[in-house]
């Protein structure tokens, strides 16, 4: 060990009176504790403060060119309307015939998963015919709602790119949302 032996050698050998030397050894335990605490702090903060990006692609908004419109089957389309008070309304198929379900964000994950399974069963697990989700954020929704719903799709592993449509909110949809007090 690298301790310095500074204690007065063999006691009173030789009868010489030596001045008592102070021990130069410092207890470093506390210092090491502190250093490791700070290391832990810096290690955790450097990796955790990294912001994360969620990539979003919106449909191209070219009014003149209608050729790149994609037709979807009603049976594989789930439309989620984002309303106020952190509520969503979702329905399968077309707005005219379907009756939307009003749910909170905690329940919608189950609904997405259930619908995903339903569509997969209907088409015999055809990878090309999976559930397509159309997200329609209305004026009542907050930005957080939008991020949350995109996150739910990510968790539910919806492979088809979600269509984010904030332009064409149908009258029937508005009526239902108003009726349920979420718009």
């Amino acid at each position: 060990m690298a301790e310095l032996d500074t204690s007065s050698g063999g006691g009173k050998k030789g009868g010489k009176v030596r001045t008592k030397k102070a021990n130069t050894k410092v207890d470093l335990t506390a210092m090491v504790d502190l250093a490791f605490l700070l290391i832990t702090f810096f290690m955790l903060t450097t990796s955790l403060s990294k912001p994360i990006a969620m990539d979003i692609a919106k449909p191209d908004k070219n009014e003149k060119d209608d050729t790149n419109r994609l037709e979807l089957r009603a049976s594989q389309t789930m439309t989620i309307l984002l309303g106020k008070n952190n509520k969503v309304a979702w329905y399968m198929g077309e707005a005219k015939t379907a009756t939307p379900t009003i749910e909170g964000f905690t329940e919608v994950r189950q609904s997405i998963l259930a619908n995903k399974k339903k569509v997969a069963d209907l088409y015999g697990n055809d990878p090309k015919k999976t559930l397509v989700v159309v997200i329609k954020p209305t004026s009542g929704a907050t930005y957080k709602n939008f991020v949350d719903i995109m996150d739910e799709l990510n968790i539910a592993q919806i492979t088809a790119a979600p269509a984010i449509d904030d332009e064409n909110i149908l009258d029937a949809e508005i009526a239902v949302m108003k009726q349920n007090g979420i718009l």
Partner: protein
Amino acid sequence: MPRAKVQRKSTSIDMTAMCDVSFLLLTFFILTATARQPDPLKITIPSSTYKIPVPDVDIAKLSIGHGKVFYEVAGQDVKMATLDKMAAQYKLEFTPTERKRFGVIQSFGVPIQSLKQYINLPDEAAREKSGLATGIPADSTNNQLADWILNSRQAVAELHSEAMRISIRGDAEEEYPTVKKIVDILQKQKINKFSLITSAEGGAQ
């Protein structure tokens, strides 16, 4: 009978080497840690389970909160080049010192007319206090935000021959129509893909 003496060893360990190593590590982490840039716009970003980190270069950051928009482009050179283009477009003059100062300004939200005054304020605290940061105008009649984005895209393309990415930092409680208004501006420039910046969510299933 004399008892057999067990030689006692000292329990104290020499901490010097350990101390050296830990401080070396500490220094390393302090130096590599990037200080969190203070944001002039107070925003709480929503959380998500996504795990894609945001790149540091060739990216523009739009902060949306409380009905205001703040803008920032990454990179000093890009910032200065963008300012030059904006100055030419709006027929304003910026001195070389002002250009340099603008290069180190983080996110800003001032109309271009009062940008000169904003740059010349001594520090970030004074800038915040000045009340000049009213957000970048983004109306259809005075769409400076669209010009900032367009000019910085050109600057990034010229300087780095890279396509600029757009990221949006929105306040969690911001209403969707405000975000939509900004997204519409982006889509007018045929930017259909952008990143939403979120914080990591713990305990995601």
